[in-house]
């Protein structure tokens, strides 16, 4: 299709916003249904068939609430934080290739762009916590910074390992290298690095920690910190943080799909690429929900120990191993 460039970008803007919005709304439904099924409950059933209209009811409720700015808070930062947490998440979708042709911008440094925008939400949640003038929110803000700094390191080490294997930062090219059968996916590329599945597990754990998902949801530790950085937020301000959380989960899973599971490449050669991309993406999203409802929250020092004492040495070892393999073979 030949659409003039400005219209194409506008279409992608609208499409990305719709995709993020719908994902946020319906991943909440999937999360609640999943939580129910994992505990042998039914989840939402009342609004619409199988509770399918529940997200709309939730959104209406959140929008009908007053946006309270408590006295004494830094009003500008307090209002800005939800925007700052959602906007970078949407930016990341610019370079994610949904299929061979369906990508907003095919940037040569796509991988770096996703990582750089992906790390802004840490600052945004920290700002939200800091501006709230609430002790729980500030504890949460301090936690989220140390958590994300700790987990960014192994994640980037894993990314560097993959970069050495693929030799490009262009997400489109990374996917194209994995064409033809699932044995070509980076996940199974044991010739480049016999520990490739371990690399994926490190990436996955870091992704959970970066998106503040359970068992690493230190930013919003309900049992100790009320709702962490979101304690003082009401109505849609609170809702936007949730949208951003799910947007980040989707980005993390898309990135894992692109880097490890061959993006839009079909494992058996049938059906269009978008279908396979979304299938892989949502299987990973399901696994994120699965992990959340399986493991209890870790303690904070346990979380930092996991990163500094296990993941970072392990990912460094994998990095060295990969470079040695590349030099030798």
């Amino acid at each position, binding site marked *: 299709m030949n659409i003039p460039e400005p219209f194409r970008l506008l279409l992608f803007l609208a499409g990305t916003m719709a995709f993020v919005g719908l994902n946020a709304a319906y991943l909440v439904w999937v999360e609640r249904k*999943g939580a*129910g*099924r*994992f*505990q*042998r*409950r*039914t989840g939402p*059933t009342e609004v619409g068939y199988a509770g399918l209209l529940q997200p709309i009811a939730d959104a209406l409720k959140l929008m009908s609430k007053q946006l309270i700015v408590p006295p004494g808070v830094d009003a500008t930062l307090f209002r800005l934080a939800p925007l700052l947490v959602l906007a970078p998440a949407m930016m990341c979708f610019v370079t994610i290739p949904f299929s061979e042709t369906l990508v907003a911008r095919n940037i040569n440094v796509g991988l770096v762009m996703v990582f750089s925008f992906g790390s802004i939400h840490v600052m945004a949640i920290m700002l939200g916590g800091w501006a709230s003038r609430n002790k729980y929110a500030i504890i949460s803000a301090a936690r989220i910074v140390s958590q994300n700094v700790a987990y960014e390191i192994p994640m980037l080490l894993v990314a560097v390992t993959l970069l050495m294997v693929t030799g490009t930062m262009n997400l489109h090219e990374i996917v194209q290298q994995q064409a033809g059968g699932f044995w070509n996916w980076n996940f199974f590329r044991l010739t480049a690095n016999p520990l490739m599945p371990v690399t994926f*597990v490190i990436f996955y754990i870091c992704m959970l920690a970066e998106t503040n998902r359970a068992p690493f949801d230190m930013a919003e530790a309900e049992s100790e910190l009320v709702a962490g950085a979101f304690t003082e937020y009401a109505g849609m301000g609170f809702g936007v943080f949730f949208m951003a959380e799910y947007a980040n989960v989707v980005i993390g899973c898309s990135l894992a799909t692109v880097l490890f599971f061959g993006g839009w490449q079909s494992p058996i050669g049938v059906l269009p690429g978008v279908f396979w991309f979304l299938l892989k993406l949502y299987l990973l999203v399901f696994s994120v929900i*699965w*992990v959340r*409802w*399986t*493991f209890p929250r870790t303690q904070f020092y346990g979380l930092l*120990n996991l990163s500094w*004492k*296990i993941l970072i*040495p392990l990912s460094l070892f994998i990095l060295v191993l990969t470079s040695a393999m590349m030099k030798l073979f």
Partner: protein
Amino acid sequence: MKHSPWQIINGFWSLLTGMRITLGQFFKPTVTVQYPHESLKMPSRFRGHIVFVRDPATGNSLCIACKACEKACPSDCIVVDGIKREGEKRKSVTDFKLDFTKCSLCGSCVEVCPTDALEFSRAYNLASTSKEQFHCIDLVQRLETDKK
């Protein structure tokens, strides 16, 4: 590193075991009873508030207004009255008021009744916005309305 590689592998394996168990639960049928739409049947020994047992022959109460329950009640929540009707050997009950707001469901009245005229009901949906509904439950009237 503080942990041996073996510990790390073992720990990771236990995480996978946990995930296998939760996925097993995921595919099992749900056990929720959607309460307002459906409800569980109460077991036979459930103690609701007391009601009269109906005499299978006449359809009336078996109560002989002996007031044993009134005396046995530790919280004084039963008031019984009866009359001697013409041509009947026993007294019949005319008035049986239960103050359910005070009742502790101890079952002394059911136990003490010489004619086994009292039993526990299975009613458990006992929520009301006013005290009056449970303040004075008229068992005689209840038996009459049940008859119709």
